[in-house]
């Protein structure tokens, strides 16, 4: 990132709003983009969209950073921005994670790609028991993307980072020809610290362990589907995207023997549990009646012929805990903002290692398989 000290933001003059995006109003209200003080040529400065020059690393890039990204990121952004972030070495083991975010649509009920970009990496770090500390944000922007949209996303990133307690310390911006990106692609990488004595990884799942979920499933996937072309339906469900590091620390603080944590994003609970079952060579038995599935999620899935166990979640975690500590962990989850509806959904066992089996409400059983690719609505 080019060297620029932050300058105070002047009271911005309002900018002409581009055509409204057809979604509910965003939770974060971004400051309008402040074009005062931009030095780029007038026609470009007055262009409300990204042009190739914004990715060139020169004055235009600098202004994009200084006048859009930094104000939008707010307090979460580090005050000094050098070519690389120089950070104190934390004690303990380092956790390092990266993820890229390409979700379409970028704006969906309850949030946008910015929420996912921060919470996704924060949660990946948290799932290994780490306390997330720092994030980088790299943007690939399609030429022609509205600056107002980028401003909204960047503002959301700033708020999400502040809510998660992480600092945005470095980043990058590139621009691609229109037709080669789909608006905005974001990569975030994160560094966290794992305290001594914390050993959380899928291989630790053991027969007898209790399997828990931190709350209702299928919410994010249904929110996204409700505005996806060809599938649109009206519903008031919003994404459940949330930072789970606070919840995880509360669970660890109980001193319980937590074996596995996993956030069931793409592929839903089915994908995560299958991966864990294979990694640990244990069987996992679920009880369908105990799965917390909101009525609207169940109904949307019935309509489209989908399995709620395969629908994505962005603010939930699966915890696999030693039997003797399960009650304690469940109580800690239920006492936390993001675990209020936590529930026990099954157990690990020695039978059918590597497979996940669910006991149906009727009393039969069925294998819960790893989803293949994207979930598609069916007519049959």
């Amino acid at each position, binding site marked *: 990132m080019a060297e620029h000290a932050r300058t105070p933001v002047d009271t911005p003059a309002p900018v002409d709003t581009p055509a409204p995006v057809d979604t509910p109003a965003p939770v974060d209200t971004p400051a309008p983009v402040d074009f005062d003080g931009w030095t780029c040529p007038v026609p470009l400065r007055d262009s409300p969209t990204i042009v190739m020059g914004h990715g060139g690393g020169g004055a235009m890039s600098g202004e994009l950073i200084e006048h859009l990204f930094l104000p939008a990121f707010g307090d979460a952004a580090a005050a000094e921005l050098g070519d690389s972030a120089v950070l104190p070495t934390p004690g303990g083991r380092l956790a390092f994670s990266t993820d890229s975010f390409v979700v379409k649509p970028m704006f969906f009920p309850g949030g946008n790609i910015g929420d996912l970009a921060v919470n996704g990496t924060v949660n990946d770090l948290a799932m290994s028991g780490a306390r997330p500390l720092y994030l980088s944000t790299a943007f690939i922007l399609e030429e022609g993307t509205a600056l107002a949209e980028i401003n909204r996303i960047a503002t959301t990133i700033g708020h999400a980072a502040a809510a998660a307690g992480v600092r945005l310390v470095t980043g990058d911006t590139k621009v691609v020809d229109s037709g080669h990106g789909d608006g905005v692609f974001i990569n975030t990488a994160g560094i966290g610290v794992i305290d001594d004595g914390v050993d959380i990884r899928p291989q630790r799942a053991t027969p007898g362990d209790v399997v828990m979920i931190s709350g209702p499933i299928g919410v994010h996937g249904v929110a996204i589907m409700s505005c996806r072309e060809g599938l649109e339906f009206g519903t008031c469900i919003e994404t459940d995207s949330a930072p789970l590091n606070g919840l995880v620390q509360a669970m660890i603080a109980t001193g319980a023997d937590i074996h596995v944590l996993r956030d069931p994003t793409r592929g839903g609970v089915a994908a995560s549990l299958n991966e864990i079952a294979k990694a640990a060579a244990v069987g996992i038995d679920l009880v369908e009646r105990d799965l917390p599935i909101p009525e609207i999620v169940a109904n949307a899935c019935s309509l489209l012929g989908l399995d709620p166990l395969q629908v994505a979640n962005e603010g939930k975690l699966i915890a696999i805990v030693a039997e003797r500590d399960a009650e304690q962990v469940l109580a800690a989850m239920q006492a936390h903002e993001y675990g209020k509806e936590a529930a026990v959904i099954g157990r690990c066992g020695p039978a059918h290692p590597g*497979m996940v089996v669910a006991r*149906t409400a*009727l009393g*039969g*059983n069925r294998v819960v398989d790893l989803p293949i690719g994207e979930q598609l609505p069916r007519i049959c």
Partner: protein
Amino acid sequence: MKYLEEFSNPELAGKLLDRIHAAATRRWAIMEVCGGQTHSIIRHGIDQLLPDEIEMIHGPGCPVCVTPLEIIDRALAIAAQPEVIFCSFGDMLRVPGSSRDLFRIKSAGGDVRVVYSPLDALRIARENPDRQVVFFGIGFETTAPANAMTVYQAKRLGIKNFSLLVSHVLVPPAISAIMESPACRVQAFLAAGHVCSVMGTTEYPTLAERYRVPIVVTGFEPLDILEGIRRTVLQLESGRHEVENAYARAVTTEGNPAAQAMLLDVFERTDRVWRGIGMIPGSGWRLSSRYADFDAENRFDVRGIRTEESTLCRSGEVLQGLIKPHECAAFGKECTPRNPLGATMVSSEGACAAYYLYRRLELTPAASHG
């Protein structure tokens, strides 16, 4: 969802199961025609809870599974053309053609879009006047009215860049074909509930009489399926072979007259090759001559396509209930949902996929379960 959840009530399911256990005194083989019923049976574990005397044979009521290979290959050829936006139900995306599937065409740059309703495809046609929009019109009688209305609208509104690739199949000729097969073991049928919502039940008494089989119109929720089976077993045990409606909340004897009128206008009967089964005369619908302009097979030159089925695939025998999926040598090895050889492994209610997804537990040699 109201009028849905109530029909999954486990307590009532238990009562129905008790009645079935009490009624069945000898072995009976019942075929559920509809793939949606197969899906429900296996997904809820109903087949495990039925008495050993009752064998459910999974019928060919999965339009995805039986769409002729030739049509799939034609769909793929059309979808690969650059000016085409190819719209389809999600079910068809992974069905293997001779060498590819729609999903791979999409990955290679083809504009393939999944829609919930054929009307979405018509909307896409209006929004993209410079592209050719083709909708893959598969399905049984249940889906035909939707496809019919869509092409009727296209014609009425003059949406010239829209066309329909039709491959409809019909249930009654399939029942005949199954019963006429020399190896047939089916003694009764659960008729497809939503097919009958459209067509009514008038086509079935002749079949029940000719083949001396009970035919019970059955729904899709667990209680519906169990009730359909219960009534079927009662008929079998008392030597009756009648048509009964166990899905009265959604099925009337005459069906839906408005839909039937549209079907008569838009479609005409034709012979169809059912993948894995072979040609069944008069078992399908194609667009009538009035709608020839909107027939994708006329609009796109897709003749001369060589079709080639996998030699390992035995989906035909599975579809007719002659073998169980795990009795096929390729099951779970060369043929899995990720790499399906035939359509019965792709569709989630194709018998092979259903067995693979839900029944591997019993089929795994070392499994021990409670």
